[in-house]
């Protein structure tokens, strides 16, 4: 099973999937994809395929969890058993529990939770196919589902990772780069507020490299932010067209 070291960046500076160091993977976003949910969205980010749905604000169950001054935000990040190379048990893993927590904390600062005391907002993120960077794409799509549910927000939260691969700081790591690379720095950001709402890292980086990585990740966030807004607008233009046709 001993693998030869993988070459992740070739002589011309191209990455395993042909991208430049500062290039994002192709991204496709659609808002309002599920009927039952109050808000929903779907993203394809590289080979990641992720659905997010929001139910609420609604009565919180069990009752004792309700907060007197704001809504309770609950978040479940979950990977489908078929989303990865080797079947994943559908029971939540420790990784999924941690990610559910940090994703919730990445979105909380954006939502006016104090507008809905004693209620719950349930957010479900289902990873249908994983290709590295699922927590970031999950946050990007979840904040659209929240907006689609009509929940008032300070800004959309958008997320993107940067990392170190073959000794070079690169944007938006894919699965191989994430697993074989030297470091991964996922960042969630609210562009209008200059607010970093999620920040994690594993691997090894010097402080200087970390500064480059966070700058690059935020740059990536700003690019995805434009696509996020486009997708949200497209949803409302479609509704407008429907209404006009009637």
């Amino acid at each position, binding site marked *: 099973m001993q693998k030869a070291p993988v070459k992740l960046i070739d002589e011309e500076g191209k990455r395993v999937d042909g991208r430049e160091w500062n290039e994002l993977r192709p991204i496709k976003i659609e808002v309002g994809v599920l009927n039952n949910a109050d808000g929903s969205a779907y993203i394809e980010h590289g080979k990641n395929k992720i659905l997010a749905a929001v139910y609420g604000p609604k009565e919180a169950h069990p009752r004792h969890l309700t907060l007197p001054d704001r809504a309770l935000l609950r978040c479940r990040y979950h990977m489908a058993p078929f989303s990865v190379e080797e079947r994943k048990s559908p029971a939540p893993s*420790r990784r999924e529990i941690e990610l559910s927590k940090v994703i919730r904390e990445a979105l909380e600062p954006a939502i006016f939770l104090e507008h809905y005391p004693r209620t719950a907002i349930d957010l479900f993120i289902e990873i249908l196919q994983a290709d590295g960077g699922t927590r970031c794409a999950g946050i990007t799509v979840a904040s659209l589902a929240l907006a689609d549910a009509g929940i008032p927000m300070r800004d959309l939260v958008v997320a993107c990772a940067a990392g170190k691969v073959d000794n070079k700081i690169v944007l938006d790591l894919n699965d191989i780069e994430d697993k074989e690379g030297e470091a991964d720095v996922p960042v969630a950001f609210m562009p209008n507020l200059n607010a*970093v709402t999620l*920040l994690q890292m594993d691997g090894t980086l010097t*402080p200087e490299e*970390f500064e480059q990585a966070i700058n690059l990740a935020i740059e990536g966030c700003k690019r995805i932010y434009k696509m996020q807004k486009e997708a949200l607008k497209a949803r409302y233009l479609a509704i407008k067209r429907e209404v006009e046709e009637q």
Partner: protein
Amino acid sequence: MTTPVTVSRVRRRQIAQLIANGMRLDGRGLTEYREIKIERGLIERAEGSAQVSLGRTIVLVGVKVGIGEPYSDRPNEGVLTVNSELVPLASPEFEAGPPGEESIELARVVDRGLRESKSIPLEELCIIPGKKVFIIFVDVYVLNHDGNLIDTSAMAALAALLNTKIFNYEVEDDEVIKIKPGFKPLPIRNYPIAVTLAEIDGKLVVDPWLDEEEVMNARITFTFDKDGNICAIQKGGGGFFTKEQVLEAMRIAREKSEELRKIVVEGL
């Protein structure tokens, strides 16, 4: 989800106002840690152990060494697993039962620091490739919760690993036989130190105690290795940091990590 300890509005304002003026309710400076005490080897049954107190926060870490199978994708490496227990006796907020997200996050942040800094050379813990390896169980046991569990647990885990012994063994017909007596120390190659900062009304403070954790908007942890590289980062809490605050926190954490490392490593 634990219900937060109630901090009155008056106290909340007091904490924030003092911090705005560069002071803290317990008399510390903004970048000052509480008093650190380390006791090593206090659990004789464990192969390694240490108890660290940071002010009134107390964390005990026990290390057990076992023999088991390696992961199939890493047949030549030993296994490191970190688990944490927020024991109910440590705080009125903690409840018995399966680990919650707080406890899982704590264990995973401690784990990431140890793993990414390559503090334990796992390839040296292989006994029979693909079949038998050493398994290092690091169990974090919180005994009294008064804030900043991450830094306290990371220090206690490192201190416990630094006094962990592994038994001598012989291989006979693919079976591993312990030879008693005789031990050798677990090899440790790096000393990761976690430094957590809280953001309170736009100011950063290190080592938040419980009341400050209740008042803070968010926290951020940087784990530095002995060469001054970052090996783990974790933001927590429902607030945010500006990019400038993140970089400032990184600089403070780097400085503080060197101070703490001396206490944990050189106190041996």
